[in-house]
């Protein structure tokens, strides 16, 4: 392994790091003292150019390999996921133009890029050391992004809460990792799995698995580790919340799936109601069930739309966990399809919230009144995104849920023991329609006292329309993405196809 090869494997990450330096440098030198609008425009264009450059590189120079026998893995599946992550960041950067909460423009966009760099490494890591470092790179950047509106008490508080809960979670994760290392003497996930099969089941292993799940459960905001999510989504600047909800979710779920199916593949257990067996499947089944119930039912009572989206994100973490529980390649593909389309959808919803918040100064339900007359485009995007989140065909959210249910039913086919979870998920997705329609009712039926049209930046309109089109496209032709993911999974490490 020489440095040339290393650089080739890490070209997208290097492009992103160079962009980061460029954004900071440009903002600190010839743009200092200029109008904030211009600085934001330049920083956002550079960010988007960097992300697009990295996507272009992955697309036209496909290269695969394992570095140091798997410390860093670059295969077709990680590359597809990285492209989606980069798209999500580019869209977030463009939506940031709609807000003006900070004079520190270069740093804000720089941190977005740094967080994305962390996501990319999370996707590529299969060793507990690199997983930890990548996770911390992403987390530390996200803590700062959440508290970036320094003069705003809500933002400072959101960042601090995110930090405290996050620190607790990474301590748990680390202790779990240290136990895994102690039990097996290995740090590579694949080798850990191989050692676990040969040793008899140890109570310490159960402790290690629960601690790892605590740490990762925090990242995906699954109940009972969700306490930070509503406060952070509500208090953080909207683009930061959007990145936490989309990119961070996708990277964390990818990491969780790898951790479970590679690292702990020999401690699966069973989540069937009549044959519970110790392992990570019953633990995750419990997290999923609780997330579905708590997320969907608490969302019913919310009056702040960002908070509502937070509880809906908790519920969606519950749905996505079904894909991990299925523990099959079909489940993996269903999970990725679901989380990717969820990222696009929630980014669209947050984009609309950002505009409404800027124009009315509030993200309460009442602030959305008369949206369909004040800005038909925004209302249309909100309509598509929220109905997709609720799972209405023919939008992407419907097929996402459909694939998840199909994957988990097929995985438990002989006994259908996991059916209880599927029934719960379907019943609660009917409940979820109620709170999404509450928002849409405000936007389309209620009248605002003073219905002045919103002024929306052309770039924001373009991004939002593209996101909504993606949601419709992947709803009408889900095969476009699913077949790509399946091919990538088959071409990836054969150990992943099961």
């Amino acid at each position, binding site marked *: 392994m020489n440095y040339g090869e290393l650089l080739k494997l890490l070209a997208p990450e290097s492009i992103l790091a160079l962009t980061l330096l460029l954004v900071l440098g440009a903002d600190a030198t010839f743009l200092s003292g200029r109008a904030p609008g211009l600085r934001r425009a330049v920083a956002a264009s550079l960010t988007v150019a960097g992300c697009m450059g990295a996507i272009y590189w992955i697309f036209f120079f496909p290269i695969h390999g394992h570095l140091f026998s798997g410390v860093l893995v670059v295969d077709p599946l990680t590359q597809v996921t990285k492209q989606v992550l980069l798209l999500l960041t580019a869209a977030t950067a463009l939506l940031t133009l709609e807000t003006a909460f900070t004079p520190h423009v270069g740093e804000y966009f720089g941190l977005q890029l740094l967080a994305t760099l962390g996501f990319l490494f999370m996707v590529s890591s299969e060793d*507990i*050391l690199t997983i*930890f*470092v990548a996770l*911390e790179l992403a987390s*530390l950047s996200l*803590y*700062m992004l959440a*508290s970036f509106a*320094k*003069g705003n*008490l*809500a933002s*400072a*508080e*959101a*960042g*601090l*809460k995110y*930090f*405290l809960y996050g*620190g*607790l979670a*990474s*301590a*748990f994760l*680390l*202790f779990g*990792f*240290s*136990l895994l*290392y*102690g039990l097996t*003497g*290995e*740090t590579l996930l694949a080798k850990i799995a191989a050692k676990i099969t040969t040793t008899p089941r140890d109570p310490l292993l159960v402790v290690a698995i629960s601690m790892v799940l605590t740490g990762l459960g925090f990242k995906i905001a699954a109940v009972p580790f969700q306490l930070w999510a*509503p*406060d952070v989504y*509500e*208090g953080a600047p909207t683009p930061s919340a959007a990145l936490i909800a989309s990119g961070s979710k996708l990277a964390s779920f990818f990491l969780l799936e790898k951790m479970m199916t590679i690292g702990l593949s020999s401690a699966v257990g069973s989540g069937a109601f009549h044959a519970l067996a110790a392992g990570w499947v019953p633990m995750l089944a419990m997290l999923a069930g609780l997330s579905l119930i708590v997320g969907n039912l608490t969302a019913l009572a919310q009056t*702040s739309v960002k*908070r509502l989206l937070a509880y809906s994100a908790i519920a969606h973490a519950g749905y996505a966990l079904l894909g991990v529980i299925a523990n099959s390649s079909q489940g993996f593909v269903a999970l990725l399809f679901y989380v990717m389309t969820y990222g696009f959808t929630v980014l669209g919803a947050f984009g609309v919230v950002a505009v409404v918040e800027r124009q009315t100064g509030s993200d309460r339900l009442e602030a959305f009144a008369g949206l369909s007359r004040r800005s038909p485009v925004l209302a249309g995007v909100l309509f598509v995104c929220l109905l997709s989140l609720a799972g209405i065909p023919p939008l992407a959210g419907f097929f996402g849920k459909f694939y998840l249910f199909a994957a988990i039913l097929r995985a438990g086919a002989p006994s259908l023991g996991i059916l209880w979870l599927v029934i719960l998920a379907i019943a609660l997705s009917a409940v979820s329609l109620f709170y999404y329609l509450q928002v849409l009712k405000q936007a389309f039926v209620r009248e605002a006292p003073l219905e002045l049209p919103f002024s929306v930046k052309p770039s924001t309109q373009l991004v939002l329309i593209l996101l909504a089109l993606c949601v419709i496209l992947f709803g009408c032709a889900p095969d476009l993405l699913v077949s790509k993911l399946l091919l990538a999974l088959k071409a990836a490490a054969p150990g992943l196809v099961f």
Partner: protein
Amino acid sequence: MIGLSHYLALSAILFSLGLLGVLVRRSLLVVYMSLELMLNAANLALVAFSRFNQNLDGQVVVFFIITVAAAEVAVGLALIVALFRLRQTTHIEDLNTLNH
């Protein structure tokens, strides 16, 4: 003779003390110190396992954890200072703007 189990017991005690501190103490700075204690409990376990498993991977991991923890200190203290400037408090019960 001090063996692996002694180190693990100490590490578990440190971790529990840290967790207790996070849950019980009311000052942000003390909570923050307790978090660091939990990280160091994991470090101790890693070093002990590394010593008794006769392989160096664990010690390498510890060096990275120490570095990351230092970065975390920088971010964490900055966040506490940012809050202090707005609220003149480092009390955890004053983090209540966002509770509805």
